[in-house]
């Protein structure tokens, strides 16, 4: 997608001397993010903003920011934003979409928000087939509160609250959200992507765009899970965290499309 954005930028600047191949999208504000260096939140956030701009819906979109590292996402997106109580973003988005069905509504949530305290809201919004798009960042840890074990933490993963590694006998197994929601009839589109390499970033952009297009066409609930890193709380450099993600997270959270209501067509 970004290459296509670059192409549009090139066309726009064809007459000028310096055609711009890549620039900051106007759907992001000029604010500096609060994310740690190397956090993949920033990439996902850019992809969402670029897609809003590309679809020409930045002015008619309402986003819902969660509780977590992205709690002040309303500072970063140039569209209208609402900040929801912990985990309640899909419920808030339901109300927004029902009151303003002509507007695009998306939520931007982390794993502690969506898969732990907000699990009920997520499942019920999905099974009701609410016509909203959920962007779900899965980094297997609670980032903002200092690296506690999350519902998505891997078996044996060392976190602040599982210093000997996650013991599945007492803490249970990680939740695979895409697989869990794929059995619900109200769900239109489910895809798990990651943003660990430039090619995967482009694939993720396409998936996010598809989510917004399905919402525009009124097909129902769409969720894009982005497998992400937390270099600070994993205790790694940003690049080492990407390698850890590829070695440990991707085998447990396989990438792919889990539901697509248009797949049979």
């Amino acid at each position, binding site marked *: 997608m970004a290459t296509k954005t670059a192409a549009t930028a090139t066309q726009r600047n064809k007459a000028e001397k310096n055609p*711009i191949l890549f*620039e900051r999208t106007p759907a992001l504000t000029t604010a500096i993010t609060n994310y740690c*260096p190397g956090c993949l939140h920033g990439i996902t956030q850019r992809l969402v903003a670029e897609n809003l701009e590309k679809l020409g819906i930045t002015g008619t979109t309402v986003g819902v920011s969660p509780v977590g590292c992205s709690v002040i996402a309303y500072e970063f997106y140039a569209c209208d934003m609402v900040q929801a109580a912990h985990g309640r973003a899909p419920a808030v988005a339901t109300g927004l979409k029902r009151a303003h069905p002509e507007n695009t509504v998306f939520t931007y949530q982390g794993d502690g928000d969506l898969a732990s305290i907000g699990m009920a809201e997520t499942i019920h919004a999905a099974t009701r087939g609410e016509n909203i798009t959920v962007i779900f960042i899965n980094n297997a840890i609670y980032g903002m509160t200092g690296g506690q074990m999350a519902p998505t933490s891997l078996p044996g993963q060392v976190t602040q609250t599982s210093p000997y590694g996650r013991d599945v006998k007492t803490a249970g197994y990680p939740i695979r959200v895409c697989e869990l929601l794929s059995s619900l009839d109200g769900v239109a589109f489910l895809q798990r992507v990651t943003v660990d390499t430039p090619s995967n970033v482009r694939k993720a952009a396409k998936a996010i765009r598809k989510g917004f297009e399905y919402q525009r066409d009124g097909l129902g609930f769409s969720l894009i899970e982005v497998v992400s890193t937390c270099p600070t709380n994993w205790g790694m450099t940003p690049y080492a965290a990407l390698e850890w993600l590829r070695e440990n997270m991707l085998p447990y959270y396989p990438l792919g499309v889990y539901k697509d209501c248009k797949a049979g067509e």
Partner: protein
Amino acid sequence: MAKVTVDIEYCKGCGLCVDFCPQEIMQLETEVITQKGYHPAHCVDQESCTACLNCAMMCPDVAIMIER
């Protein structure tokens, strides 16, 4: 050849552009410290840039602008 501009106001020195540049022309400026206290990235050889956009794709802070 393309021109890579890093906005040091946004750059947090995470080094992902350095790791992903196939031409190995991105480096962190250890002599410079930004207002936020990071060593920002910069392009050391604009002539060798192939405009693959890898650095811009992987920059979490959207600090990189690329012009032809």
